[in-house]
């Protein structure tokens, strides 16, 4: 039995890298700095060790050969999930390029809210260490931050800071969703201010908040059940802050055209920076390889991970390349599902030939034609993953010798067998 310390997690998105994990053969136990998100995903036992073809155990070679056969004469295969490490995404994109596939990250519908805003007007953003050392006012929009990342407050707010004299005096404001617990309460008992409204009303609320930041007159006293005076209070706090931070999870803004909300808050941040102080955005993401997928697809193709290769070169379309639509409309003719992090995340059920390259332990309502269990990056093999703030790639460690192949091993083998 050994204990490995300073283990980075690919699961929570906020780049915790201080976990201690006890390794006993193939079983892992988080002994320090676990959380509700990370601990179960590290401790999950390996169940499947052998690939299956048509539901029957098969050798890796046979499974790879079958996968290649299923893909060989397809016209528009779809590669969904895209939840893996950097080398896995490299292999995935090489395979997609080779067989003219559509690449679609499973979290893209949420991420699209950010990409559309970014590609239309841009933003001013920051990263976790800047939040930790500078943030004096944190505005959380539409998101239950501690459910998203249980250790966010402990690691990045209620901690020593270089430029915030008393970090327990930092102000936390929730707009939209209320927090599900008390992690946002400061060590000396200061509670977050909470201004709740329906998530679907955030476009209106953010529009008014931005108008107030820009000193536009608002005639109404109330918007979506919130007092305009309270929103004025938020605007005033952001403008009085030395380094305000506005955070949101794009996936939590689950309503139509939420990119306009992201745009409104990003433009509001720019407005504040034109009023003689600093303010930055902090988009929350980084789960199950979503940032990794978009980063690697970005440098390999120029576009985020909703891109097709069916014409021999990459074409990005954040709507038309939605794999679920392509499957539903009968446009796709095969499905490859890549998910090395989460065995609960299984492919959509379809009548098409289906290949799953997934974390050991997946259970299917409909057995795929080929299932190849792969190791999890950061547990079964070393790798790289991008944190939520995109700038920081973490070096994932190998913790045990499971003998499971990596996503890259499997996808490279399928590509070579094509």
């Amino acid at each position, binding site marked *: 039995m050994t204990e490995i310390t*300073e283990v*980075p997690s690919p699961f929570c998105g906020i*780049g915790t*890298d*201080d976990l201690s994990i006890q390794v006993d053969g193939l079983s892992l136990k988080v002994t320090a700095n676990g959380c509700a998100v990370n601990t179960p995903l590290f401790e999950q036992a390996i169940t499947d060790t052998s690939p299956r073809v048509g539901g029957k155990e098969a050798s890796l070679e046979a499974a790879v050969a079958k996968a290649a056969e299923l893909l060989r004469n397809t016209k528009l295969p779809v590669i969904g999930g895209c939840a893996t490490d*950097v*080398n896995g995404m*490299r292999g995935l994109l090489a395979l997609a*390029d*080779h067989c003219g596939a559509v690449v679609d990250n499973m979290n893209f519908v949420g991420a699209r809210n950010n*990409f559309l805003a*970014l*590609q*239309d007007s*841009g*933003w*001013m*953003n*920051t*990263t*976790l*260490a*800047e939040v*930790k*050392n*500078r943030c004096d006012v944190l505005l959380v929009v539409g998101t239950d931050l501690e459910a998203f990342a249980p250790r966010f407050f402990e*690691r*990045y707010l209620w901690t*020593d800071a*270089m*430029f915030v004299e008393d970090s327990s005096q930092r102000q936390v404001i929730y707009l939209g969703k209320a927090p599900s617990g008390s992690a946002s309460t400061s060590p000396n008992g200061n509670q977050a201010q909470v201004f709740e409204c329906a998530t679907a009303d955030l476009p209106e609320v953010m529009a008014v908040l931005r108008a107030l930041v820009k000193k536009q007159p608002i005639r109404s006293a109330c918007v979506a059940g919130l007092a305009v005076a309270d929103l004025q209070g938020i605007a005033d706090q952001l403008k009085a802050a*030395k380094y305000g931070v506005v955070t949101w999870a794009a996936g939590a803004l689950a309503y139509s055209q939420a990119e306009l909300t992201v745009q409104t808050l990003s433009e509001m941040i720019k407005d504040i*920076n034109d009023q*003689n102080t*600093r303010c*930055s955005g902090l988009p929350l993401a980084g789960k199950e390889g979503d940032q990794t997928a*978009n*980063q690697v697809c*970005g*440098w*390999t*193709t*120029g*576009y*985020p991970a909703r891109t097709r*290769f069916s014409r*021999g*070169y*990459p*074409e*990005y379309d954040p709507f038309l390349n939605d794999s679920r639509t392509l499957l539903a409309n009968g446009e796709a003719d095969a499905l490859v599902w890549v998910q090395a992090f989460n065995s609960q995340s299984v492919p959509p059920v379809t009548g098409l030939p289906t290949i799953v390259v997934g974390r050991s332990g997946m259970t299917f309502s409909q057995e795929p034609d080929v299932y190849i269990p792969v190791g999890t990056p950061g547990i079964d093999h*070393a790798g*790289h993953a991008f944190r939520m703030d*995109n*700038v*920081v*790639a*973490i*070096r994932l460690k190998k913790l045990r010798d499971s003998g499971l192949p990596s996503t*890259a091993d499997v996808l490279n083998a399928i590509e070579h067998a094509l």
Partner: protein
Amino acid sequence: MLIKLSGGTVYDPAAGIAGQQQDIYIQDGRIINAPAEATPDKDYDLKGKVVMSGAIDMHTHIGGGKGNIARTLLPEDHRADPVERTHICRSGCGHAMPSTFVTGYRYAEMGYTAGFEPALLPINARQAHMEMGDIPILDKGGYVMLGSDDYLLRMLTAKQDQKAINDYVAWTINSAKAIGVKVVNPGGINAFKFNQRKLDLDEQNSHYGVTPREILRVLATAVKELGVSHPLHVHGCNLGVPGNVQTTLDTIQGIGGLPMHLTHIQFHSYGTEGDFKFSSGAAQIAEAVNKNKNITIDVGQILFGQTVTASGDSMRQHANHKHASPNKWVTMDIECDAGCGVVPFKYRDQNFVNALQWAIGLETFLLVDDPWRIFLTTDHPNGAPFTSYPHLIRLLMDKSFRNDMLATIHPEAQKMTTLASIDREYSLQEIAIMTRAGAAKLIGLKDRGGLSAGNWADITVYTDNPNREQMFEKPDYVFKDGQLVVVDGKVIATPWGTTHTVKPDFDPSVEKGLKDYFDRYLTMKVGNFKISDDEITDDGRGSVTVHPLV
């Protein structure tokens, strides 16, 4: 396999050879002396062809987060330049900020065999190496960025001695797998986080009380004392600000004779004369460069058309966002380490400022005497995409072409430049110095950038053509480490290049202070921060080359 290149006209400034007919022999990837009696397995008849070593771009943004932001920001730019998959090459996109694979192909297709990313943020170095790991054919490397990191500024405020700073700089070079050190708007990126919007050479950071001049001094000293060949690579204060020529002259004086490389100096050579209060400072800059032998520069030429600027200089990029075209832009504050700003630009020949920027860059090229101390760059993609180099070479080598172009730009800009009166035309030997021998010498690449025996066989063969743009955009052959990779301007093989680094020594006790700092203030364990060689080599495509210290 023994390869012979027969009878080419060789320009090899590293060996003092300027246009002599010579045979070159290649074996096991390297150039060798003529073997006593061996029959080549392959003999290329290069009579009448021009032979140079592979070109080296010593300042090009080819890896790292800001480049990927630039890519993500501009899908419309990629759509206009799709690159199809072939049986040899991966698909991708081109124009302003090409995809990684296309970057490698297009550089090689112009005869380049190495490119150096000048802004490797320590915290983002891992991403930069991963992106460069997906650039085929080229060798690569990076200059690690310091000077706005809170750790260094705390050291300066605490009056730590030069030895302690040297240890920190050496540790950072090792951790980030770099071959040099860069500073961008010294202390200014940090000052922007404290809401300072400008920072002159002698202006204090409002929190630390440290000035850019002090930062430049300690970093240039560290680089020299550590024996790193490449001098401190400096993106100075006040980028793009009219009147910044004085800042740049003061920066040269202020460094007190220490080796210093001033990058994309075109953006730092502006006066305030004339009706538009914007004028060329190129003559003053060239005079100072000619006089101060410790100074090297690259130009950062702008060329007209759409591009995107991606810089570590968040302070200046925020100020420049009002020029964004199309109107979308990004800035980031990054990890108490650095920052970045990405602003699309469309340089227009009928815009007075852009037209004069174009002329200022060319004046600089033509007024600096010593081609060993000036380098051909567009600061890709900031002044123009690297694919415009052949056009730029023609502007330098062909006076009548240059003057024809000059006659088309904004008329007021024509009046504000001395370009028409400059007769100089660069020779092939001078081009070979700027883009090969000089660059290799500046970066400290042993056995690259030359064609004498012992060098790696990175070789480009051109057909001599009075139209230098056509000549340089389509080499007949390119060899990388002795392997033929390009024929008639098209990639035929895609090997992987190496990553060039230096590993200066440091006192290991430096890590104690760093560990405490990382634990207390940063978001990563110091052990997880350091990049190990296997991260570059473990998928079998990369390798790490360590160059000697001086």
